[in-house]
């Protein structure tokens, strides 16, 4: 089940061009030759998933698990916003967020390997701060 989800996700990233950092950076570069593709990707994903989640939540529990595991917090705090800001800098520098970075492993380059290794180090650091 999870494999199918991952496959759909990876297909979506590749078909939409999100495994190409140049396209992602083209979206973030609002003062340059702006490329709106990412807006269609995120918009298409959120709208589809909005209706999908509503359909899923009609059930008392998932098909193959005992319960839905959803985040329950609704408050904003410094860790959330500070973390998002740090992530934004890294995303803007590289054009890679974690999904496309990992999905691009089949076309691994030295800079991408460096990024993935540093990302893992970052995750370990985040658990200690």
């Amino acid at each position, binding site marked *: 089940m*999870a494999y199918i*989800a*991952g*496959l759909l*996700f*990876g297909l*979506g*990233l*590749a*078909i*939409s*061009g999100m495994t*190409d950092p*140049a396209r992602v950076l083209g979206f*973030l*570069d609002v*003062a*340059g030759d702006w490329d709106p593709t*990412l807006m*269609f990707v995120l918009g298409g*994903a*959120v709208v*589809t*998933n909005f209706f*999908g989640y509503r359909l899923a939540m009609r059930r008392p529990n*998932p*098909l193959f*698990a005992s*319960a*839905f*595991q959803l*985040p329950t917090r609704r408050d904003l705090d410094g860790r*959330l*916003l*500070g*973390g*998002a*800001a*740090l*992530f*934004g*800098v*890294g*995303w*803007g520098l590289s*054009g890679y*967020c*974690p*999904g496309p970075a*990992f999905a691009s492993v089949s076309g691994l380059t030295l*800079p991408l390997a*460096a*990024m993935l290794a*540093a*990302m*893992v*180090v*970052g995750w370990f650091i985040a*658990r200690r*701060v």
Partner: protein
Amino acid sequence: MTVDMTASLHGLIGGVLIGLSATWLMITLGRIAGISGILGTLITARPKGDSGWRLAFLLGLLSGPAVVILAGGGLGNVAGQAGAVIGAPAGGVATMLVAGLLVGVGTGIGSGCTSGHGVCGLARLSPRSMAATLVFLAVAVVTVFVVRHVMGGGA
């Protein structure tokens, strides 16, 4: 600004597939399709009895682009050719090390990335995810502006 209709359409198709992926993971296993959480937790915590689905998801995530490449990029990929499905990194090793560290620490303490907060959190109308998504999008836009138009770098 150039609005490339083909790219926009492929973006929309890819986006719908990503949305279906997140819905599928929720309906079948009750889980949020957040890559930083799925991968980060697997590596840093190695949760017993909670790792199998993570590995399966990640294997699928790797297969997606590989399938498009094997199909010669013909599955409607924007680039339209196998060699261009996975684009070249935007920076050298040093830049990417810094970027990777920031992405790791940031998504770690901020509890999510573009998929967890963006695709899944926005669809759940979570106030935390809306705030996080606004912040990382805005900061990324400013970062690219500084790198490309203030410093004039090649990235």
